[in-house]
């Protein structure tokens, strides 16, 4: 009723206005066609004039002084199609969203901002565009999609996180991981896995992905916040960028039920793509080994690891009393025949250990709504029978998102999300590095991928050979030694929004998160790992098997087993419970016609509790009713070694923050923005000064395309905006540096006998009152532009970052008790550019072709780092930081050719050319100069090139990603001694064989037993070779990431089937590398072959079926 009166009044007033002058006032309201929501900040201009206005928070606008002659108004709104409407006094304008143009709203996780008002550097990408079908973890699909974001699939195993960097690394010891925010709530990892550990292949990488529990079909969009202006609302946690995930919501009036099914087939890797010797060549090498004194009966028959030769020797002495014969007759013919069989064997381990079984995902969602309620609910199941043996995954998710309008000014949003995952993985122990010889090793590794690559093809896959003195067969071992993983994630959140007066919105959000992961490592009774603990069949083995135990209390005792029965059961539990509360207020106002003000502020508190338990049980008899039959010696031994029996740990994170941000816009063209956040964390200890960090940003934007003088360039220049920001953000640094007050821990000091044990408290870390957050200043300048009516869109950003107060190791006088301490002493600077170019090359009624090119370049340099690392840290893995070099630089030992014996020679720290005199532990800064800088392990230039062709109902998408600028350490395949298990790459064909070869080859000789005697530390030489300038390859690659063809069924057919929509899509992912360094020999440049649970991302084909009912 009152509305009607109002309308009448308005009408009367307008009439009055018309009477009094030649101009008139036009009023109206702009809403979106999709959901009827107001379009905030749309620019409404009178055609042919410079007169115009901006819509307010309710989408209302008012333009005065409109000449009577004017006939149309034009509504421009970023993210909507431009609309021309005939002038009426009171107008209701409906705009259509335009997905072709960048979407109009930036979601920071706290606020939704009109892109035209947004001063920061952020990229929005819809899940539809990002999603890679058949890739259950959606974080992987961001690869190449966003300028400035690099995604490295260091392992493709489900649950492992890819290495994601937003504008490169931001910390030296910290993780540099971006912050994941889902529906406004920060996702916390259940365990903290550092950047290096991500590529370690260790079991805890399986739970390193914070969003592996999200069903990718539930995701609406990603917003990647890159510069300090975009991220400053997260202040002291946002140094490494923020990835905001928005999940789907129901929409009024649109009731849907959809089904999405994906069926994925993965190809088995093939030996033809790798440079591995066939069994004939391999046997040739073994013969050479035999000539050089290896593989002889005495050593090989009782060696800890052996293959065909060891087996042959064992068969020779295996007497069968019933037949009166030996298993293999000790005649030259019988032996030759045995070896010839191996020569022709050419076992295809990939074929045996990998499977093409179909992985399928089904998800069903229901959504819809009315004026009062919107709902979205979904369930999904992912079932992966496993690409490799023992890698099954099942994941179930449920998601619900409800919005209810209690009153017109009060609404409640409830989101609930749960997922459960059950996974199997090959049993694995953590890897370790021997700093003395430089060898990286993992005991009992049975990773199928690295097994296939590193195991001789001469072995019979159905036969047992010897490993750790005990019988070993990979298929049998995988069945008897595996990890069971259970992951449960749960999130509940509620948000209340209240609009007491028109311009003010108050909101309160509360959420709880819980996740629980259980990892059970089952080493069954007869697995090689269990049998190794009781293998003492001969006195030689008894004396040399390191898993046996010799009682120190009895000097005359013989080695004995600590595991006479059963296997080993290990369990690791990680729990995470967190809650968040946030209260915010926003104020939107428009003064006069030209001034718009948006204020937003609030406070939040977060709490995360983590709990971890580790337990190892000995003597679990899996075969005998699952009973623990343990030997007391195992406790005696652990106690003497000071080993853990079980462990338990708790950690607690508490954060509180106050924040405020304000945006002012003048005429919709000139926008300034400022943000402050004051954040406190308990991580830095009880010091009340160190724990608080104020962060801020100032930024501005100029929407040049709205300038009157630019109108004449329309539509040639349809969009042009400039922006700049300067900010300070932070991060609390690596979690283990939290000693703003003294950190006292407990320990059991080593004592010569268990009777003398006592427990101590000790100072684990001295106090550092000055400990503070790691910080970053960032300057960002960029522009966005659109040409020819936005047929060509071009965006460009340039940034410069100054990271300071980074945690580093420093020398101290040591008088406090620690000569080297972690403190805020390091700094790093970086800069880069990002550009994205989207063009619509052809657009006709039936056919369109669009191209998308993304490029980003980032470069960083460590400018202050008072101390240096050991040689081994600089040359292995992902390298380390050195002053004056990029973060994660890899160095190499300078290779100086082979000597006349075929042994590799190197330059050492004293400037001498040497074979074995390399000290991997040296960390004296003055003596590291001999190492040659090989490059950084982090790509500097990444991006993608994509083309989409649409013809009628067909869409063809060809998407390539590329990455340049990093180097890769080649697999360490060279050793001072090999066994008859070793498989060798074909470069061994070029190895040094006779004197003189050193002039033509750089592949060292297969060292003879005699040479190993002569040079007692020959392992140093071969490990140095593995880490030398010879064994480094460029990591550059161009990858055919995706080719897909999709077809949308015509609505006639679909309707006939009583459905709304139906589409089919066939997608090939990860097909091949267009370009990669030849030196890699088929090794995936993104992947770190570290064994454990790591496997590369497979080549796969996915069929997707989408049904809308």
């Amino acid at each position, binding site marked *: 009723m009152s509305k009607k009166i109002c309308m009448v009044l308005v009408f009367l007033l307008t009439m009055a206005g018309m009477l009094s002058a030649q101009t008139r006032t036009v009023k109206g309201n702009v809403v979106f066609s999709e959901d009827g929501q107001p379009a905030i900040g749309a620019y409404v201009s009178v055609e042919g004039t410079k007169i115009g206005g901006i819509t307010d928070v309710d989408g209302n606008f008012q333009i005065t002084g409109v000449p009577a002659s004017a006939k149309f108004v034009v509504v421009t709104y970023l993210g909507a199609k431009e609309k021309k409407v005939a002038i009426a006094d009171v107008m209701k304008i409906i705009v259509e969203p335009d997905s072709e143009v960048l979407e109009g709203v930036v979601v920071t996780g706290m606020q939704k901002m009109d892109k035209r008002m947004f001063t920061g550097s952020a990229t929005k990408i819809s899940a539809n565009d990002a999603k890679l079908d058949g890739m259950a973890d959606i974080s992987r699909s961001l690869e190449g999609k966003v300028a400035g974001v690099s995604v490295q699939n260091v392992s493709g195993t489900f649950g492992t996180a890819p290495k994601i960097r937003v504008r490169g690394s931001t910390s030296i010891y910290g993780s540099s991981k971006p912050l994941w925010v889902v529906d406004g709530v920060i996702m916390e990892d259940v365990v903290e896995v550092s950047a290096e550990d991500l590529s370690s292949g260790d079991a805890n990488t399986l739970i390193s992905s914070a969003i592996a529990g999200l069903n990718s079909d539930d995701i609406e969009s990603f917003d990647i916040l890159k510069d300090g202006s975009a991220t400053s609302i997260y202040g002291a946690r946002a140094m490494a960028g923020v990835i905001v995930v928005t999940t789907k919501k129901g929409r009024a009036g649109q009731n849907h039920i959809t089904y999405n099914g994906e069926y994925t087939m993965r190809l088995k890797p093939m030996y033809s793509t790798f440079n591995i010797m066939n069994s004939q060549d391999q046997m040739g090498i073994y013969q050479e080994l035999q000539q050089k004194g290896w593989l002889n009966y005495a050593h090989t028959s009782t060696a800890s690891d052996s293959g065909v030769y060891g087996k042959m020797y064992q068969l020779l002495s295996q007497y069968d009393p019933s037949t009166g014969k030996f298993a293999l007759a000790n005649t030259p013919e019988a032996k030759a025949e045995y070896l010839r069989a191996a020569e022709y064997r050419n076992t295809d381990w990939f074929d045996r250990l990998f499977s093409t079984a179909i992985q399928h995902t089904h998800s069903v969602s229901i959504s819809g709504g009315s004026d009062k309620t919107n709902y979205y609910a979904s369930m999904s199941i992912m079932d992966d029978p496993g690409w490799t043996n023992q890698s099954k995954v099942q994941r179930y998710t449920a998601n619900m998102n409800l919005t209810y309008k209690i009153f017109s000014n009060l609404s409640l949003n409830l989101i609930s999300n749960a997922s459960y995952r059950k996974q199997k993985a090959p049993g694995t122990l953590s890897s370790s590095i021997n700093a003395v010889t430089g060898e990286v090793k993992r005991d009992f590794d049975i990773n199928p991928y690295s097994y296939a690559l590193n195991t001789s093809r001469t072995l019979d896959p159905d036969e047992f050979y010897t490993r750790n003195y005990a019988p070993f067969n990979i298929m049998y071992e995988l069945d008897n030694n595996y990890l069971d993983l259970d992951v449960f994630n749960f999130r509940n959140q509620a948000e209340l929004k209240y609009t007491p007066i028109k311009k003010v919105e108050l909101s309160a959000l509360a959420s709880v998160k819980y996740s629980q992961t259980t990892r059970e490592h089952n080493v069954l009774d007869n697995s090689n790992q269990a049998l190794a603990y009781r293998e003492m069949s001969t006195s030689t083995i008894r004396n040399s098997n390191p898993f046996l135990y010799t009682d120190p209390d009895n000097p005359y005792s013989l080695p004995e087993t600590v595991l006479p029965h059963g296997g080993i059961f290990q369990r690791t539990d990680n729990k995470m419970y967190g809650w968040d509360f946030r209260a915010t207020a926003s104020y939107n106002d428009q003064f006069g016609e030209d001034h718009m003000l948006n204020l937003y502020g609030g406070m939040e508190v977060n709490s995360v509790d983590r709990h971890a338990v580790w337990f190892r049980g000995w003597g679990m008899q899996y075969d005998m009713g699952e009973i623990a039959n343990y030997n007391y010696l195992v406790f005696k031994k652990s106690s003497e070694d000071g080993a853990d029996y079980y462990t338990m740990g708790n950690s607690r994170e508490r954060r*509180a923050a106050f924040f405020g941000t304000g945006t002012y816009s003048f005429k919709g063209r000139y926008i300034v923005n400022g943000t402050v956040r004051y954040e406190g964390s*308990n991580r830095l200890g009880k010091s009340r000064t160190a724990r608080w960090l104020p962060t801020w940003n100032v930024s501005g934007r100029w929407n040049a395309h709205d300038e009157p003088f630019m109108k004449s360039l329309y539509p040639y220049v349809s969009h042009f905006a400039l922006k700049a920001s300067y900010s300070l953000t932070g991060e609390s640094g690596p979690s283990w540096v939290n000693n703003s007050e003294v950190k*006292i821990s407990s320990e059991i000091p080593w*004592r010569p006998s268990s009777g003398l044990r006592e427990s101590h*408290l000790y*100072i684990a870390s001295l*106090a550092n009152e000055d400990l503070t957050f790691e910080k970053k200043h960032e300057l960002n300048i960029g522009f966005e532009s659109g040409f020819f009516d936005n047929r060509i869109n071009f965006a460009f950003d340039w940034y410069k970052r100054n990271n300071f107060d980074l945690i580093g190791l420093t020398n101290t*006088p040591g008088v406090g008790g620690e*000569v080297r301490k972690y403190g805020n002493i390091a700094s790093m600077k970086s800069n880069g550019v990002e550009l994205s170019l989207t063009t619509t090359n052809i657009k006709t009624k039936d056919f369109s072709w669009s191209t998308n090119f993304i490029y980003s370049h980032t470069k960083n340099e460590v400018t202050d780092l008072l101390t240096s690392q050991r040689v081994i840290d600089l040359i292995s893995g992902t390298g380390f930081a050195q002053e004056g070099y990029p973060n994660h630089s890899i160095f190499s030992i300078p290779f100086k050719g082979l000597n006349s014996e075929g042994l590799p020679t190197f330059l050492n720290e004293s400037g001498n050319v040497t074979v074995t005199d390399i000290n991997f532990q040296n960390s004296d800064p003055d003596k590291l100069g001999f190492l040659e800088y090989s490059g950084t392990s982090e790509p500097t230039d990444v991006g993608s090139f994509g083309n989409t062709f649409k013809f009628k109902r067909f869409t063809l998408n060809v998407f390539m990603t590329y990455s340049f600028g990093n180097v890769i350490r080649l697999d360490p395949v060279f050793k001072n001694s090999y066994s008859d298990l070793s498989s060798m790459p074909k470069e061994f064909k070029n190895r040094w064989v006779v004197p003189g070869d050193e002039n033509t080859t750089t592949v060292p000789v297969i060292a003879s037993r005699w040479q190993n005697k002569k040079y007692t530390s020959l392992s140093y030489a071969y490990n140095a070779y593995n880490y030398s300038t010879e064994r480094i390859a460029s990591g550059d690659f161009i990858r055919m990431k995706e080719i897909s063809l999709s077809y949308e069924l015509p609505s006639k057919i679909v309707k006939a089937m009583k459905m709304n929509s139906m589409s089919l899509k066939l997608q090939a992912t990860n097909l091949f590398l267009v370009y990669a360094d030849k030196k890699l020999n088929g090794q995936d440049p993104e992947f770190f072959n570290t064994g454990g649970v790591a496997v590369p991302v497979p080549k796969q084909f996915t069929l997707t079926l989408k049904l809308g009912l």
Partner: protein
Amino acid sequence: MKTFKISYILAATVIFGLSACNKFLDTTPDNRATVDSEEKVISLVGSAYSENDHILIAEFYSDNVDNYGVQYTGTSRFFDSIYQWSELQESNNESTERIWGSYYSAIAAANQAIIAIDELGGPERSTAMSQALGEAYLCRAYSHFILVNMFCLQYNKKTSTTDLGIPYMTKPETTLAPQYERGNVAAVYAQIEEDLEKGLALVGDDNYTVPKYHFNKLAAYAFAARFYLFYEKYDLVIKYADMCLGSSPATMLRDYDVLATMPNGSPQQQPTTLHYVDPSVNANLLLFTAFSVMGQAFGAYGTASMYSHGSYLATYEDCQAAQPWGTSAYKDAPSVYTGSMDRVIFWRCPRIFQYTDPVAGIGYVRTVYPALSTDECLLNRAEAYVHLGDYNKACDDLNLWVHNCNKTKDVMTPESIKAFYDKVDYWEWNKATVKKHINPVFGAVEEGSQEEAMYQCIVAAKRIESLGLGQRWFDVKRFGIEIHRRSMNMAGKPETLTDSMPIDDPRRAMQLPVRVIAAGITPNPR
């Protein structure tokens, strides 16, 4: 007016919010301990003992090793540089950096405990607290004592007020890298005395479950005896040595009769060495564990076979040479190694391997050593008697020591000692004897006098008593003995003299670790 109110309310909210938040943020981030009970204090003091020893370096710095490089090549850059008295560039478990860090770390634990005791109500709170405080003071004093003797010139009344000392830490360090002044040796000694006296007054044995790994009462007295000997307060040496040794010192000395029956031969070294450091042995007053290869370097291992206490040294200078008490009839006979090395050594500290990865054979080489023993205490008392001119009492103690470890029944008298040394020539690098020139820091001694003979005898006894335990280096410093570096020939005899360390050589104060100097601490002059 209204806005005024609003801002008032806002300000109040923020202030309230902040203080509430601060409480919220006081939650400890991990399972770190807060030292808030007596039990925890006692537990914390338990870590006020260094786990990195100074002994290996001290022994290698002393004149107890010669260079057998022409025959035996077992060495490393670490052993090379310590043998050559050069500045250590490398860091390992027994480098100067670890010694510095580890003893100061022990001091930090003591200081932290002292603060915690104060916060809990001080020593008045209970006997347990006062004894814990006593232990903390003793630990603090002991660690500083080792550091000042390793890294500074020897204490003496003439130059110690100007000789560079070491920072004396009485509070835990709370900032990243604060700067320190080194002060002077005399000041450090004064502070050690203060802590020692406080510790002696409070120390007790009630808190300990494994007393021999803590400053028990007897260990405290033995430490006091050694300290006052170095501090030239000889009455106090006798006072505390008496308290340590009690009325029947013979029962307190090392059980050499037992050691003599222990199995001999290479594989049996382990039981013998483990017995040497057994806490049930009365002679062991305070035992330290260490990340140390001394069990190898002073044992039947090829480690550092280039540098050995060889047969030449043994035959002419110490354990196989004729001494005032007779020739080498030690109950626990020295082990002689030939073939892979030229080494004559008593089995003392064990070599134990602690596996962290049994498969790779990776772990730590460990040892246990007696930091304080009754035998050493007895010899300290004997020396104090010499200083006070009571040669008969000194002889009583010397005889007690000799008859415990040596099969001889001969009884020494001041006269017999003088007579013995009168007949011995002074040591020359290629004509070694048991008599080296002494120029003690505590005052000139006339050569050929009764006094000199007594000192010579004490020094000789101590050298044998502490062989492989590092104490010789401190006697070299205190008695002003010039020492040398000799390279032996294929016959194991001195071939060349490669270096000498005269009594005023600045290298007698070991150079501070490289990183410590880099961090701004004044280095020792060179």
